């Protein structure tokens, strides 16, 4: 019988949150193990595909020198679809093509694998193809995790749950409650291969540069959600995500939504001639601040998606994941060094997060989920108004401009009464402003 090995920190899940937690713990002298169910880190990890530079640099300074990134994002564009029409707005900054950058497109299977190699080089032990089934208790105290393998109990002082949106262990530990359909978005995406030059031509990009395109309104058939197209080196990530509750209400199927999107005149030409190489789907925890579970208990912290740390409004997630992981890694090391693994000691993690953009941003948008749920007009009527107004504005038909403005305003108030318009703007400003 081999001597039972004990770890300081056990991290469940090798995504950005878990790897950030593990790297931070190791840097603070903790003996750390990461247990991942996938064949390799990144094998099961999915996101739309935008990685933000500054938060990632906090974990690995100048990671962009060596990480497998797709393209630096120099342009972010929005398109509000209505019928066959589109109202677009965007911003382009060529300086974002150079360090220190703002964001890159990435493919997670490659990026996470690279990040895991970095973590291993720093001394993190990563075990793959192994499912953690539960926490291990001695009395009420957490003393490790139980894996699905034979002789699979792993002893550790602090467990950091970075297990992703389903948060099965956090649920078993009573930290997380069952996710409701209004708390998660269902997202599907395809990787569509295209030659580099085609991508650069179609998105008006210099060689190697990238763009993101977010599609709203008709893109999601008016459901709360967004569609997106991100440029990779020689492929496009094309996807769509909508709140599960909306999908259920409309009896919508995510695959149909994606096919519908790909056939839209605004999208069709962008992906024309491409070959679908991969298809993936995932849940995104978009319940917002009010749906954040309890993030700690004696000996345990919850980070990343498992802690509902996703900012749906700004399509941010991996940055919140890494920052929360780093905070948890530091708190774990501090607790272990001071021999205090109590709940009070773990609470420091949440206190730290409250001081960062992670909980500040989510708090700021705490009412947004409710706002959009109660006010579907933001995803249905307003894209129509925008499109209709633009159509009138740009149509040259010998009508005097003063009459045209009146006509536009009449169209607007015809779709939404004046009082409602004012109320909507007030609600939007109060929630988002």
């Amino acid at each position: 019988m081999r001597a039972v090995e004990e770890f300081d920190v056990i991290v469940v899940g090798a995504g950005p949150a878990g790897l950030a937690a593990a790297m931070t713990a190791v840097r603070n002298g903790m003996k750390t193990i990461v247990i991942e169910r996938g064949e390799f880190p990144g094998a099961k990890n999915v996101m739309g595909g935008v990685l933000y530079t500054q938060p990632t640099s906090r974990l690995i300074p100048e990671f962009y020198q060596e990480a497998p990134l797709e393209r630096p994002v120099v342009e972010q564009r929005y398109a509000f679809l209505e019928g066959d029409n589109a109202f677009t707005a965007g911003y382009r900054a060529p300086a974002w093509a150079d360090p220190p950058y703002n964001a890159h497109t990435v493919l997670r299977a490659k990026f996470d694998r690279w990040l895991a190699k970095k973590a291993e080089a720093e001394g993190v032990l990563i075990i793959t193809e192994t499912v953690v089934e539960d926490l291990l208790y001695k009395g009420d105290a957490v003393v490790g995790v139980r894996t699905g393998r034979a002789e699979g109990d792993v002893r550790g002082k602090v467990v950091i749950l970075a297990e992703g949106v389903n948060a099965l262990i956090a649920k078993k530990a009573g930290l997380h409650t069952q996710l409701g359909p209004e708390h998660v978005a269902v997202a599907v995406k395809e990787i569509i291969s295209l030659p580099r030059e085609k991508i650069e031509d179609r998105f008006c990009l210099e060689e190697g540069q990238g763009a993101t395109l977010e599609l709203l309104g008709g893109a999601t058939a008016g459901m709360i959600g967004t569609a997106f197209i991100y440029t990779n080196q020689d492929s496009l990530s094309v996807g769509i995500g909508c709140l599960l509750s909306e999908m259920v209400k409309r009896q919508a199927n995510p695959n149909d939504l994606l096919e519908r999107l790909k056939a839209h005149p605004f999208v069709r030409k962008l992906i024309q001639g491409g070959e679908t190489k991969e298809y993936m789907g995932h849940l995104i925890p978009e319940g917002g601040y009010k749906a954040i579970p309890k993030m700690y208990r004696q000996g345990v912290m919850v980070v990343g998606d498992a802690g509902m740390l996703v900012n749906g409004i700004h399509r941010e997630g991996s940055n919140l994941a890494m920052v929360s992981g780093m905070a948890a890694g530091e708190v774990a090391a501090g607790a272990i060094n001071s021999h205090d693994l109590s709940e009070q000691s773990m609470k420091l993690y949440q206190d730290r997060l409250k001081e960062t953009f992670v909980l500040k941003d989510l708090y700021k948008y705490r009412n947004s989920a409710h706002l959009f749920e109660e006010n579907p007009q933001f995803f249905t009527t307003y894209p129509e108004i925008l499109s209709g107004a633009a159509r009138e504005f740009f149509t040259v038909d010998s009508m005097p401009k003063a009459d045209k403005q009146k006509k536009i305003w009449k169209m607007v108030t015809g779709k939404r009464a004046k009082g409602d318009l004012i109320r909507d703007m007030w609600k939007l400003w109060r929630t988002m402003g």
Partner: protein
Amino acid sequence: MHFVVCLKQVPDTSEVRIDPKTNTLMREGVPSIINPYDAHALEEALALRDKAGGKVTVLSMGPPQAVDSLRKAVSLGADEAILLSDRAFAGSDTLATSYILAQALEKIRQEQGIDLVLCGKQAIDGDTAQVGPGIARRLDIPQLTYVIKVDWIKEGEIQVHRKLEDGREVARAKLPALLTVEKELNEIRYATFPNMLRAAKYEPLVWGADKFHLSPAEMGLKGSPTSVSRIFAPPGRTGGEQIMAIDDPGSAAISLVGKLFQQNIIMVHPIARGGRD
């Protein structure tokens, strides 16, 4: 007992795609796995060790990345792993490969003895089934190929079942011997957590060309007379006839025997013919 398993890291052909223009395998980005037949050889070695005691050493020849497969073997329970890796080995065909492996096995045999060498029946990326027998011949030990069952192993002797085209053969051999195995031999185990931990930290021994006795003329491109002129799938068998025997097996048998005589597949001996006359 000392069991040595030869294993090859191969591209996972279930994920390999064929380049439609050149008809060659597109290996880029394809994950590597332990050759599936070799994985069954490893499993058998582990099971025999668990029963008879001793140790299991895995031996592989390949690029430095092949340590991944050796670690995987350790996670399944192998005790020790050795990687033969050197630029001088590059380009080896089955003749040179079996030479290099045999020389490494010879070194292991001299240092710690070997009771049984186990190989997969063939590798899924080449399908030659030549390296196992090649090793046995060079080590001058008995070879039992296409093994589907090991009856027993004891000091100095082993009994196995071999799969033949027309049946099974029960065969015995003196030890040390070499087996090449089929997949139906066993079910591969699920690694235990302590072995996963051990594997994650394990550093396989790496032997370059200077670590054991090798003649430069017999390895690498120099030692490889094979040249592949063409690769093709053999044509499927054509012709033939089915005689349905479900309703009336008796007349089906008569019809079959009649046809066998007609086509001279079974011939009537002249004497017998004479006798009938």
